C-alpha cells in the first residue's frame, strides 16, 4: 500500500515537473540562466584581471599619449589664458567695420601683456600667433619690453609725489590684513616653513577694487612663482596704473571714508591724481609697434580667442580662417593636399612592388626543402638586423649618379656617361629603398600562408587536365590571397608613416606627409598642426582599413597558420 502511495507521489512529482513552465533551475535553486551568466561573468572578470597589467600599460603608454597628441589639434587655450581681459574686451569690437578696436581693448592689452611678460608667457603666445600671422612673434617680444615704460609714467608720478609709494613694505602695510602682516614679519626666508599666503585687508576691495584684484595677482606671482618674500618686494608698475584708475574712477568718492594705514598718503594722492599726466594706451602701443593700430593682429587674436579651434585642421587641408569663414590658401602656399595624395599614391606603389617581388620569393620558400628554405629565410630576415639608416645610406651609394648602379650601366654601355639615370632624390629612390626595407613584411605572411597550401592540390588540378597557368590561377592563387591581404596591410600602413627613408633618398618629389609632421614636431614646434596632420592621416588609414574590410573582408587576412 505504502509502495503504491510512494509511486503515485513520485509520478505526481514527475508530472508536476513536466508541467512546470518557469525557468530551469540550478542545483541551488537559482534559475540556470542566471547562474550560468554569473559563472561566465566571474570567468570574464578573472580573465580581465589577468590581462589588466597589459591593458593598463597599453592605455597609459600608447592610447593616452595618442589621445593627448590628437587633442592638441583643436586645443587653443593659450590665447584666452594669456590675454583674458583683451579677448573679453574684443568681444564688443566689430571686426567687419575695418576700424581698430576701442580704447578699452588697449588698456586690457596693457594689463594682459604686463602680467604675461612678468610670467614670461608673452613670447610663447607670440610664437603661437606667428603661425597665423607673420610678425606676431617679434610684435609680442617687442611689446613685452615696451609695457614697462607705460606703467612707469604713473609710477614716477606717485613716487615723486611722496617717497612713501616707493617701497613695497608701505604697499603691504596698506593692503595686507593685520594678521597676515604680523605673520609675514615673523617669517624667515630660509626657515623652511612656507611663506604666509597674502591676505587682503578688509574693506580695501570695496574702495580700491582694481588695485586689490591686481595686487592679489602680483602677490600670488611673487609668493608662488618667484618664491620671493612679498613683504620686501616693490610692486609692479602695473599696480600704480590701476591704483591711479581707482583714485580717479567710480569708487573715488568712498576714499574719504578710508581710515586704515597710509590714509594721509592716500588722501594726498587722491587729491593730486586728478592733475596727473595720463597715458593714452592706444598711442603707447602705436609707439611700440604700428602693427597694433592695424586690424590684422586684432582679427587674428579674435579669431583664435576661443578655447578650441579648427584652425589647425583648416591649415592641414590648405585652408585658412578669414573674415568670411574658411577659404583656400593662396596657390603658392598649398602643400598638404599634394603631400597627402602623394603619400597614398607612393605607399600603394610600394605595396604593389612588394607584392610583385615578394610573391615569387614566398612561393620558392614554401616549396623548397626545409634546409634550403631556412637559409633563404635568413637572407630575408638579414635586413631586419641591420640598422635602418645603414640600409638607407647604402642605397645612396648604390643609386646616386656616380654610384654603383649607374657606373655598371655605363660600363655595360646601356646608358651614356653624360646621361646617367636619376635614381635617387626623387620618387624612384623612395620607392626602391622603401620596397627593399618593407619587403620582409610582405614575404613573411605570404610564406606562412603558402606553407599551409598542400602541394597535392596543384598536382590534383594538373592531373584533372589544367594547364600550369590555370592550376596556379584557379587553385593556388585564391588560397594565397589572405597572405597578400595581410602583407599589403602591413606594408601599406608602415609605409604611410615612414619619414626617415624618404627624407634621405626622397629629394623634393619623394617626400611624404610624415616628413612635414616631423618638421612641425621638431623644427617649427607647431605641434597643433602636426597633430592635425597626424589625425587626418590616422583617419585616412582607418578609412582604408574599413574599406578593405568591406571589399575583401578582414577575416580573409591571415598572418599564418
Amino acid at each position, binding site marked *: 500500500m505504502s509502495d503504491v502511495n510512494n509511486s503515485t507521489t513520485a509520478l505526481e512529482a514527475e508530472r508536476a515537473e513536466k508541467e512546470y513552465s518557469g525557468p530551469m533551475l540550478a542545483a541551488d535553486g537559482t534559475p540556470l540562466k542566471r547562474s550560468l551568466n554569473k559563472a561566465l561573468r566571474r570567468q570574464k572578470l578573472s580573465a580581465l584581471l589577468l590581462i589588466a597589467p597589459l591593458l593598463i600599460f597599453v592605455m597609459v603608454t600608447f592610447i593616452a599619449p595618442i589621445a593627448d597628441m590628437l587633442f592638441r589639434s583643436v586645443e587653443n587655450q593659450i590665447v584666452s589664458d594669456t590675454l583674458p581681459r583683451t579677448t573679453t574686451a574684443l568681444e564688443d569690437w566689430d571686426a567687419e567695420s575695418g576700424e581698430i578696436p576701442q580704447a578699452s581693448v588697449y588698456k586690457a592689452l596693457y594689463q594682459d601683456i604686463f602680467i604675461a611678460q612678468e610670467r614670461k608667457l608673452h613670447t610663447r603666445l607670440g*610664437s603661437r600667433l606667428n603661425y597665423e600671422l607673420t610678425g606676431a612673434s617679434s610684435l609680442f617680444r617687442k611689446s613685452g619690453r615696451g609695457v614697462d615704460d607705460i606703467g612707469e609714467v604713473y609710477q614716477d608720478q606717485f613716487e615723486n609725489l611722496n617717497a612713501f609709494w616707493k617701497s613695497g613694505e608701505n604697499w603691504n602695510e596698506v593692503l595686507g590684513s593685520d594678521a597676515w602682516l604680523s605673520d609675514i614679519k615673523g617669517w624667515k626666508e630660509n626657515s623652511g616653513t612656507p611663506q604666509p599666503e597674502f591676505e587682503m585687508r578688509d574693506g580695501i576691495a570695496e574702495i580700491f577694487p582694481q588695485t586689490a584684484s591686481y595686487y592679489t595677482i602680483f602677490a600670488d606671482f611673487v609668493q608662488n612663482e618667484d618664491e620671493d618674500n612679498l613683504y620686501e618686494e616693490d610692486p609692479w608698475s602695473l599696480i600704480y596704473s590701476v591704483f591711479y584708475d581707482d583714485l580717479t574712477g567710480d569708487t573715488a568718492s568712498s576714499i574719504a571714508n578710508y581710515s586704515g594705514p597710509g590714509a594721509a598718503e592716500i588722501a594726498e594722492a587722491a587729491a593730486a591724481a586728478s592733475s596727473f599726466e595720463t597715458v593714452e594706451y592706444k598711442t603707447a602701443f602705436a609707439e611700440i609697434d604700428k602693427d597694433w593700430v592695424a586690424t590684422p593682429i586684432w582679427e587674428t587674436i579674435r579669431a583664435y580667442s576661443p578655447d578650441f579651434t579648427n584652425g589647425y585642421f583648416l591649415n592641414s587641408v590648405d585652408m585658412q580662417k578669414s573674415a568670411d569663414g574658411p577659404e583656400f590658401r593662396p596657390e603658392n602656399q598649398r602643400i598638404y593636399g599634394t603631400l597627402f595624395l602623394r603619400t597614398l599614391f607612393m605607399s600603394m606603389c610600394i605595396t604593389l612592388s612588394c607584392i610583385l617581388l615578394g610573391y615569387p620569393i614566398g612561393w620558392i620558400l614554401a616549396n623548397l626543402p626545409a634546409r634550403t628554405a631556412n637559409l633563404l629565410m635568413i637572407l630575408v630576415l638579414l635586413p631586419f638586423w641591420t640598422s635602418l639608416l645603414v640600409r638607407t645610406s647604402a642605397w645612396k*651609394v648604390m643609386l646616386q649618379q656616380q*654610384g654603383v648602379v649607374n657606373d655598371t650601366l655605363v660600363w655595360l654601355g646601356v646608358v651614356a656617361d653624360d646621361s646617367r639615370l636619376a635614381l635617387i632624390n626623387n620618387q624612384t629612390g623612395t620607392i626602391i629603398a622603401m620596397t627593399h626595407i618593407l619587403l620582409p613584411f610582405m614575404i613573411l605572411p605570404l610564406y606562412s600562408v603558402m606553407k599551409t597550401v598542400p602541394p597535392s592540390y596543384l598536382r590534383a588540378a594538373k592531373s584533372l587536365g589544367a594547364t600550369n597557368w590555370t592550376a596556379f590561377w584557379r587553385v593556388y592563387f585564391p588560397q594565397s590571397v589572405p597572405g597578400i591581404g595581410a602583407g599589403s596591410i602591413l606594408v601599406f600602413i608602415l609605409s604611410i608613416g615612414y619619414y626617415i627613408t624618404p627624407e634621405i633618398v626622397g629629394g623634393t618629389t619623394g617626400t611624404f606627409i610624415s616628413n612635414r609632421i616631423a618638421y612641425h614636431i*621638431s*623644427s617649427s614646434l607647431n605641434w597643433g598642426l602636426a597633430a592635425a596632420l597626424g589625425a587626418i592621416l590616422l583617419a585616412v588609414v582607418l578609412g582604408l582599413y574599413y574599406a578593405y574590410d568591406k571589399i575583401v573582408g578582414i577575416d580573409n587576412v591571415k598572418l599564418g597558420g
Partner: protein
Amino acid sequence: MKFTTTLLASSAIVGAGTLALADAHGNMANEMTIVSWGGAYQNSQLKAYVEPYLEMHPEVSVIWDESSNEAVAKLRAMNEAGNITWDLVDVVAADAIRLCDEGLAMEYDPEELLAKGDDGSSAEDDFGDLIVSDCYIPQIVYSTTFGYRTDMVPDGVDAPDDICDVFDLETYPGKRALEKRPINNMEWALLCDGVAKDEVYDVLATPEGQEKALAKLDTIKDSVIWWSAGADTPQLLADGEVFMGSTYNGRLYSVIEEQDQPVGMMWDAQVFDLDGWIIPAGLEDAKLARVKDFIMFATDTKRLADQANYISYGPARQSSAPLVPEDMKQHMPTDPANAENTFLYNYAFWADYRDDIDAKFQSWLAQ
C-alpha cells in the same frame, strides 16, 4: 627710472648669485648631462674644456647626449612632462631664441655667469653683439658657405669666387647642393638677382620679394640636390655628385684638410651663425651650481681659443682671437681674407618670417 630698475634688478641677481655660489661649494651636483651635436664638434668641446674640467674636478662625471638637432622639441616635451634631465644644452642661436621665447631656457646675467676676458674687458663687451638672446651663451662663430670640386671647374674658366657663380649654370655646369630650407638660400638668390646687400631683408619681407627669390632659385632648381643633414654636402662633393654645395665651413675643412679631397672653399657671401649653450629653465639648485661653475670655466678666453685647435670655428670672444694658432687662422670664417663679404644670420627676421616663407618654399619645392 629705467636705470635704477636695471641696477636694482642686476644687484638682486648678483645677490642671488653669490648666495647660490656660497651654497654651491657645499652642494654641487657631481653629475652633469651635456647635450651636443656629436661628431667632430663635440670632440672639440671634449678636448678643449670638458676633459680639462674633469681633471680639475675628478669627482664629476659627464653624460653626453647627442640630441642637439632636436633639442627644442625634446626640451619642450621634458618641460611639459615636468622632468628635465638635461643640465646644459648646445644649440644654434635661432633655437636658443625660440627656447628663450618659450620660457624653456634660463635667462642669465653675463657679468655674473661668465668670466672676464683675458684682456680685462667685461664679459658683456667681450662677447659683444653675439649674445643675441638673454638666455644664450655663445661659444663659436661658424658659417654656412660653399665648397666646390676643383677638378670639375671647366677648362679656361676661373674657379668660382662669387656667390652668383652658384646660379650661373652656363659657366659652371653641374649639380649644386643646397639646404632644404629657405634660410640663406633666399638671401643668396636675392643678392644675385641684383638686390643690394643692405636691402635684402626689406625685399624679402614683401610677398613680391619672396616671389623674386623663388623665381631666381627656380633657374637652377633642376640642378639642385637638397640636403638636410650637415654631412650630406661633404659626401656629395667627395663622390663627385655635385659641383658645388653649401654646408658648414668646419665640414668643408675636414673634407679638404683631413680627407684630402679636391675641394676648394668659396667664402663669398658666407652666412655667419652662432653655436652656444643654454641652461634649461627650472634646474635644481645643486645642478645649477655645477653648471654655472662649468660654464665659468668653459667659456673663458683660453678655453674658447683652445677649441679652435680642434675645429675650424671662430671663438665667440674677441679676446680669444689673438690666441688662435696661426695655421688655423686661415680656415676661420672670421679671418679677414675670408670675411670680405659676409652675412650675419638675421635672427629677428627669420623668427617672424620663418613659418610664412617656409610654407611658400616647401610648396615651391613640391611643385
